[in-house]
């Protein structure tokens, strides 16, 4: 039965300002993963300063090479440890886990990424492009240091936004939203996703968000990642790792 796979870091990229990418080769994973899916990743060597695995979205996938990428920001001990690993080091990876972002032929897709929330849209933008679907990507950060993958992304379809105007447009991603009937997909700080939901609340557009709830197991056994969700049976604490991480924004009981 499948559990954590030991995978070697085949490449690493240091983006600066605390952003890193790690690359792994596994064709089973790169063939089956879809944007929105996530992995639980842990370092089970002696050197690990943390004991629990950490969740990360799939970032880019290079299907022909069987290679996939994890893009992350250092925020604590777990990510700090990952950032110090080198090519050749081994990590244990479980997944792909969770559901994924919906796509739809007949509606224009608006993807909105905040900071490290760009991960799922890297691969998704390529997929919808290949499928000939209409989309734009609004990608924001505090400053130019939070904007990466510029040459990888389709510049005609991407609106870069920084709070201090140091790259692309100046402002917040929410200022660049358009009203209309769209499929809106978003990943980033919860406050940003909530604003996007509120922007589209009374329109025809549907908004799907990827929730970054803190996770311990990723497998559904601990009930640690539960989020208040409106279900058919009323409001429930639903495990994000089991029913998510992608939810229809209107199902979410947003924090005050």
């Amino acid at each position, binding site marked *: *039965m*499948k*559990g*954590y796979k030991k995978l070697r870091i085949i490449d690493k990229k240091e983006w600066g300002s605390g952003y890193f990418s790690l690359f792994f080769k596994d064709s089973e994973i790169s063939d089956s993963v879809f944007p929105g899916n996530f992995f639980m990743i*842990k370092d*089970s060597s002696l050197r690990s300063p*943390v*004991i*629990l*695995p950490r969740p990360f979205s799939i970032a880019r996938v290079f299907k022909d090479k069987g290679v996939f990428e994890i893009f992350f920001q250092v925020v604590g001990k*777990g990510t700090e440890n990952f950032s110090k690993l080198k090519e050749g080091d081994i990590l*244990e990876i*479980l997944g792909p886990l969770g559901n994924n972002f919906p796509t739809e032929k007949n509606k224009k897709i608006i993807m909105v990424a905040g900071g490290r929330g760009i991960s799922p849209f890297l691969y998704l933008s390529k997929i919808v492009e290949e499928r000939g679907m209409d989309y734009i990507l609004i990608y924001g950060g505090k400053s130019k240091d939070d904007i990466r993958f510029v040459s990888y992304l389709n510049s005609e379809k991407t609106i870069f936004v920084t709070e201090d105007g140091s790259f692309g447009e100046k402002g917040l991603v929410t200022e660049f939203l358009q009203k209309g009937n769209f499929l809106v997909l978003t990943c980033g700080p919860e406050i940003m996703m909530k604003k996007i939901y509120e922007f589209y609340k009374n329109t025809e557009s549907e908004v799907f968000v990827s929730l970054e*709830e*803190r*996770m*311990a*197991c990723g*497998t*559904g*056994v*601990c*009930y*640690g*990642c*539960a*989020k*208040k969700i409106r279900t058919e049976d009323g*409001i*429930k*604490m639903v495990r994000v790792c*089991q029913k998510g991480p992608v939810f229809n924004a209107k199902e979410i009981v947003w924090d005050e």
Partner: protein
Amino acid sequence: MSNPNIKTKVANLEFKNPVIFASGTSGYGYELEKYIDLNQIGGFISKGIYYNPRMGNESPRIYETPCGMLNAIGLQGIGVKRFKEEIIPFWEKYDTLLGVNVAGESEEEYLKVVEYLESENRIDFFEINLSCPNVQAGGKSPSWDPEKTNSIIRGIKDISKKHIMAKLSPNVTYIEEIAKAAEEGGADSISLVNTFVGMSVDIKTRKPHIKNVFGGVSGPAIKPMAVALVHKVFKAVSIPVVGIGGIVSAEDVLEFIIAGASAVQIGTATIIDPQSAIKIIDKLPSLMNKLSYDKIEDLIGSLKTGG
């Protein structure tokens, strides 16, 4: 190379091996089906269950601490009715010993849960989670008080023919008193420890990392405390003891067994990796061979002190 015997008994319960999945860290079992063969494990104890479904606490519910984790799930659960309808049938496929972790906000609720499930033959034992906060008693937990412990266990023994395992909280002054109270109440075995009360603060926001403020600490950090409490209870009572707390390796299993445990439960290890228990079970025989140990049962409480 001999083939060490890793079977063990906890009173009338005969386990294939000493590794039982702890309550609340293994879901209801179905979550693990895609990762492990549930027939290979020693035993399984389901998530704590109240009579009615329960929403649990708000998030964040978990936070990692040094060599451990803090949780305040708040015993989210599906209630006895759905447990009977959905979970029992799932377990019919397997022959692994199944325990139900019984929760209650009052003495009556513990009894109602046991009463409702008593006739289910698939359930091999009840583990009574005496650490639930008692709403009537202002959040105090029954296992902080020998009389409450005694009376709950006695009440349950009156209505149940199944093996009753009393699960104790470590957050007490005299664990021996509580253990003896459970034994006198008729408990068939004692399992310990549940989590230690803990808390963690985000110094940037000045908010607790856990919405509920307080949570329970589990994982390797608590292992030395858990071993000490297991050894104390082993010496204080004559019913078998099941050891819990920070077990992540086959070495840890033997440590608890030598200190007095007849079997062990693993909790946080399953959160870290759903296959931890299987890996531990697989390693036990070779570890025992290396140490020239023949039988788990010979090791129980075999600690050498003095001299």
